[in-house]
Each structure stands twice: as C-alpha cells, then as structure tokens.
C-alpha cells in the first residue's frame, strides 16, 4: 500500500510517499538545496502562498523519485492543522483535487501528531506509551502518546517556543540565523557561567520569553560585548534551555511511569540536548528515540506515517473537511 503525504502548514512545502511497514520511498522538502536549484531560483524562507507555486513541482518530483505514478497511490493524506490557514489550504485543496480526480481516499493529519511519529521512520521504533517532546520554532509541548490518536497534553509553552527563543537571542547578539545553529556554534567548547532564570520551574508548562528577556537585560547592561562574553552568554542560555527541556521530559516520564521518550521538532537536532537527554535516560533507565534531522524538522514523511496507519485501517476523512488552524489535542 502506497500513501502520498502533503505538508504545507508553515514555511516548508513537502511531499512524501510511504509504503508498507512505514517505509519511506521518497521525500522532498522545499528547503532542500537541490530543490532550490532544480526549481530555478531560491524558494523564499517564508513560503506562505509560495506553496501554490512549488507544490505541483514537488509532488511530481516525489512520485518520480519513488518510481511510481499516481495510479500506484492507494490513499492521500495532508496536514490540515495546526498552522497558517492560507498555507494549510493549499496542501489540503491540492490533496482533495487529487483524491476526487483519481478516486482515492483522504485522511487529514495533525501536524503535531506527525512529529510524534517521525520516530517511526527510523529502524528502531518506540513502543507505546511514550512521552513526546515536540520543540521547534513554532511549538514546544510535552505529550503522553498511548497510541495513534490517543494523546494527552502534559504541558506546553505559555509564550515563546524554544526554537524561537534561540532565534531571538541569536538576533539580539547579532550572531546570525538560524539561531539554533549560530548559538550552538558560539557555545561550542564553552561552559556557561552566567546565571539565568528558570521560568515555571515547578510547573509542567514551559516559558521561554522571560529567559530571552533576561539575556536582553544583560546585553543592555553590558557596554562592550566581547566575543568571549557572547560565547559565555550563548553557552549559559543553551545549557538553561536544554536543562528545562530535559527536566520536564524526565519528570513527565516519572509521573506517568513511561519508559520511552521521543524528541522531535527542529530543536531536537541540538547536540547538547541529544547528549544530555541520552545521559540522563541511561541513569534513569529510560530509552530515547530521536529521529534524524530531516525527519525532526517539518516534513511530509512524518505526516505520511500517520496517514498510512489510518488509511491502512480503513479510516478516512470526509472531503468536506476544512483546514483547522488552531487544532490542538
């Protein structure tokens, strides 16, 4: 059974084909360098309605890469929320058109649940239940995942997402974009010695806005920002964000007596986070599953895993469905 998946919830346009046993046949994402080249120009970072321009191209390339035609597709799924409504609608309407003209069943997938199941694209998969930490530029939340569509939200950010805090701190230090990469590079080999706050320490929710403002206050108070000071600040900030993410994830495992942890979203590619969670997991007898980078950031393959499961089990979404920009569990 072959499932075509479409993801257009925010900046990236992506298509994938998933086949039996959640095996990935092909995946294309608009942010890939080869797409920029083949498409004849740079795809803007903020894609929004650019989805409309690039999606047909990505769709065709994805079928070609999988060496199949639309006739070989047994079902189509797309992200229908949460996200930017105009962006979601492009993917959803494209999927609906394909379903109607080719008489294929449709399934509407939630972007966040896609992140949970990015872990199924790897050879070693987590068993249910697992605790999922989704940390990206747009989301930071912890969920208890007991099965497909059996989720409980444990905590979420009350203000900025973790990835957003990385971007904003990098910008106010003037060290480049994307912030996660820039801060990681600046903090390399440095141990932070600057004391930063731990907002909502005792609670399940996250808050990163106060941490960002604390860095801003320090920067404003400092007359001459030397590179060494910036490095120290980056290291201190990164260590604090990682500590917060790791603490709350491990705490959730204990509370719900769960042994498996899945980490996904762009922030999951942070080396210190990977290192810290792996170390703690060993000492606490927990198992951590972190998908490779291209499955952690926004992509259609993870959407395809969810679509595959439901379409395989004969669930489908009525084609009258609309985008749900504020869909949460």
């Amino acid at each position, binding site marked *: 059974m072959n499932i075509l998946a479409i993801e257009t919830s925010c900046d990236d346009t992506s298509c994938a084909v998933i086949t039996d046993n959640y095996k990935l046949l092909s995946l294309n994402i608009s942010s890939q360098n080869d797409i920029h080249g083949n498409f004849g120009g740079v795809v803007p970072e903020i894609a929004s309605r650019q989805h409309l321009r690039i999606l047909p191209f990505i769709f065709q390339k994805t079928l070609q890469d999988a060496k199949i035609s639309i006739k070989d597709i047994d079902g189509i799924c797309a992200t229908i929320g949460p996200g*930017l409504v105009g962006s979601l609608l492009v993917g959803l309407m494209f999927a609906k058109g394909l379903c109607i003209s080719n008489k294929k069943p449709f399934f509407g997938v939630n972007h966040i649940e896609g992140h949970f199941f990015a872990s199924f694209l790897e050879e070693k998969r987590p068993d249910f239940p697992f605790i999922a930490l989704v940390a990206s530029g747009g989301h930071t939340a912890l969920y208890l995942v007991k099965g497909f569509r059996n989720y409980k939200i444990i905590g979420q950010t009350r*203000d*900025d997402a973790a990835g957003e805090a990385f*971007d904003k701190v990098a910008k*106010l230090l003037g060290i480049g974009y994307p912030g996660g990469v820039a801060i990681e590079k600046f903090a390399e080999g440095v141990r932070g010695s600057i004391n930063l706050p731990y907002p909502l320490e005792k609670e399940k929710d996250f808050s990163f806005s106060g941490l960002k403002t604390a860095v801003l206050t320090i920067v404003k108070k400092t007359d001459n920002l030397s590179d060494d000071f910036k490095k120290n600040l980056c290291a201190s900030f990164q260590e604090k964000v990682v500590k917060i993410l790791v603490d709350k994830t491990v705490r959730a495992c204990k509370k719900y007596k769960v042994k498996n942890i899945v980490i996904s979203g762009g922030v999951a590619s942070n080396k210190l986070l990977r290192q810290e969670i792996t170390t703690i997991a060993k000492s606490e007898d927990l198992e951590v599953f972190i998908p490779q980078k291209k499955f952690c950031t926004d992509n259609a393959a993870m959407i395809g895993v969810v679509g595959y499961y439901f379409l395989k089990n004969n669930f489908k979404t009525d084609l009258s469905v609309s985008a749900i920009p504020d869909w949460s569990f």
Partner: protein
Amino acid sequence: MKVKSEELVTLITIKTSCDKETIELGYRIGKNCKGGEIVALCGDLGAGKTCFVKGIGKGLNIEDRVINSPTFLICQSYTSGRLPLFHFDLYRLSDFSEIEDIGWYDYLNSDSVIVIEWAEKIREYLISDNVLWVTINIISENIREFVISANNKKLKYLLD
C-alpha cells in the same frame, strides 16, 4: 496614504509594573471589544507584547495559557472565545506584500478581533478608525509605559 503618528489622538498613557498588571490592561481592552477592532502593538523585544495579548484574549474568554507567540507561524487563530481572535506577529516579515501573501484581506472581518505585534512595519496600511495603536516603552526591568492612541476618539469605549 501615510498616517503620521502625530495625527493620532492619545487616549491614555498608563504604566504597569509587572506581567499581571500588563495582562489586566489587556483584559480591560479585550472585554470591551465588539468585533472589528484592530489592535496594533509596537514595542521592542521583551516589551511584553505577547503578555498584553494574553490579557486581550482573557477579555474575549480565551484561556490565557493557550495564547503564545505567533512569531513562527505569523498568525495564530483562537476561536474558542466570545469573538474569534487573530494574533499576528510581523517580526519575520519585511514588507506589506508578504502579509498580503498570507491572506491579510481574508482576515479583516467585522466579527473578529485582530491583534498585530510589530505593527509599525505596516503602519501606513493601518489607517482605519478601528485601529487602536498601543506603543509599549520599556522604562526599567519591570516597568512598562503603554501609550494608547487612535485616529479619533471612536475607540474610547475599549478603555472603559
């Protein structure tokens, strides 16, 4: 048509000394919204814009915990309250054509409330009488000054 800030009428200038007071000020405006209002927020990083929007949401009966930063998504919609709230953040955008691209005109609806962070980026396009300008000045680590203005006194009911 370009609107200069000196053409605006200041409705109130008020100081808050903590997040809680900022949320309360937002709440006061949110609970007076009838639909069709556009709240244009200006203020630096860390001024408390998202915090203020939580208050507006609370005034619309939207749980303040769920309102968070729309920087990445550019617009977050909240439909669980008494009126729909569309929360924009133009931080990542560079000009008006980009906000047009994401369907700006589709959001302008008399039944909803629009809040825009970094609204100064599209100042000359926000010329309607329904735009409430809220400029947040950072006075010290915790104290913020809110300068609230509009084209005329039509929106004064928001501060009742």
